[in-house]
């Protein structure tokens, strides 16, 4: 019992980070039908941005988080403007390959500037952990670290904010309209370029926050961290139903909890295997994901 709960705790912390990244994938896909493979690198840059703001500028954690998010967001808007927008009318494969290219460029540039070695991430909060057994005897031995709680709470707050933007504001309404019918939206006067730029901004801000949180959680960032995390978050988005915003969150938690359980009950080296096994199974039996709907092919 305690073992199981401990794995759940670990899974929820990791899942919060996957969810923050997966949301960006799913929002961009929902509107442009583009899988933005550079998104994992955006998350990685969020981590480096965090180090810069915390160590070099010596900002407090909350200020650094509030600054890192828009910085990374603007960065993504520039990428969209110069790498993806010129290919708006092109076949879908063209921007997809461009996205892979952008991903490689960002990765190698970071390696060049910051070095290939992992960088330590300054710890904003004192290391602390709580024994759940002190309050609930049945959970004797379950430990929650303070960082895990922070990661989870920050991620949830950001997701609630995102939900409010998407459901209650007019830019969110425009995003939803665009994802349902691109042409009808622009014919109703929705300025698509601005809405798409905004979508990249929001998606990247969340990924940037994820990068900072993962730095805090694992005490380090490195140039390659975006690759695997990006793929995992992509898997989570597909699992939940790509293009469906709540699906990304559900997919992320299912994925991370499966990983945590596999690591706990068998071997940690199966961690990535289970993630991609899930991806393969989903693609075989339910390619539209948990919350998605099968796309009708027009004849």
């Amino acid at each position, binding site marked *: 019992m305690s073992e199981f709960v401990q794995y759940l705790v670990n899974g929820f912390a990791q899942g919060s980070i996957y969810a923050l990244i997966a949301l960006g994938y799913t929002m961009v896909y929902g509107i442009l039908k583009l899988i933005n493979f550079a998104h994992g690198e955006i998350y990685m840059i969020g981590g480096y941005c965090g180090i810069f703001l915390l160590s070099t500028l010596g900002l407090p954690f909350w200020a650094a988080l509030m600054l890192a998010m828009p910085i990374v967001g603007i960065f993504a808007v520039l990428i969209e403007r110069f790498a993806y927008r010129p290919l708006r009318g092109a076949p879908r494969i063209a921007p997809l390959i461009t996205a892979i290219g952008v991903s490689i460029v960002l990765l190698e540039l970071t390696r060049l500037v910051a070095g290939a070695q992992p960088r330590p991430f300054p710890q904003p909060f004192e290391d602390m952990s709580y024994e759940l057994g002190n309050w609930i005897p049945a959970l004797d031995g379950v430990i929650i670290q303070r960082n895990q709680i922070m990661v989870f709470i920050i991620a949830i707050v950001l997701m609630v*904010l995102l939900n*409010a*933007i998407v459901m*209650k*504001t*007019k*830019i969110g*309404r*425009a995003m*939803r*309209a665009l994802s*349902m*019918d691109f*042409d*009808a*939206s*622009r*014919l*109703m*006067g*929705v*300025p*698509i370029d601005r809405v798409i730029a905004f979508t990249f901004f929001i998606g990247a801000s969340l990924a940037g926050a994820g990068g900072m949180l993962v730095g805090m959680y694992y005490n380090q960032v490195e140039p390659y961290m975006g690759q695997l995390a990006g793929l995992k978050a992509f898997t989570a988005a597909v699992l939940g139903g790509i293009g469906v915003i709540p699906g990304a969150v559900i997919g992320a938690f299912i994925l991370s909890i499966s990983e945590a359980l596999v690591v706990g009950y068998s071997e940690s080296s199966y961690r990535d295997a289970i993630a991609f096994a899930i991806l393969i199974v989903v693609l075989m039996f339910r390619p539209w994901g948990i919350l998605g709907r099968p796309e009708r092919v027009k004849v």
Partner: protein
Amino acid sequence: MSALLDIAALTIRFGGLVAVNRVDIKIEKGELVGLIGPNGAGKTTCFNMLTGVYEPTSGTICLEGKNINGLAPHQICSKGVARTFQNIRLFKSMTVLENLLVSLHRERGYSLAEALFGLGRFGKREQEMRTKAMEILRMLGLDHRAHLPASSLPYGEQRKVEIARALATSPKLLLLDEPAAGMNPSETAQLAKDIQKIRKDFDITVLLIEHDMSLVMKICERIYVLDYGQLIAQGKPEEIKRDPRVIEAYLGGGLGGEQHA
């Protein structure tokens, strides 16, 4: 004074196919004009050029004397051209009200910061948008449907919501693409009344593509006929009914027959 819409020598080619060939259409403010023709005549292609979806190969489209060729669809929309679609294209999982609010997007602004903290103009502007959308729904008798998902409405009402959504962009010119498609005769008769009422209440000009001759002949003041991308006739409904080229295009007298169909 220039016409509301002045289309001159409008042409579009897709590869070797000339889909629309040197078409001239002129519409004065307040008119209700029909655009008819057999399937594949180029009617919807004309609408797509008028709204910026396609860029014409040559020719000009002037709205109130200003050339709107080459503008993006959302820019043309803000100049006052709105449309509906041949196949209903509502934002299906949004409510009826939200569908109209999308159309009001560019009209009333507030910043994201205001929205996030619920401050400043956010509440007021959102309320204004809702009031305006509800008023349009009320005028079309759809206000009791405002909070239902658009896709849950019966077919005829979905068509009406499409018109309401177009009206929410505050157009000068409303383009209706086969509004009666899939309707039964009594629904079509009601639609005829609705279109006339909308034109009066909203003080707009209407250009209508339609296959249902009973509707077109009844409500349009002037009609243009397209066939194979060419304008083959124009004039009042009675003139069009008698025009030999039109009868020819509709396979020898199909016009009279379709009236009773």
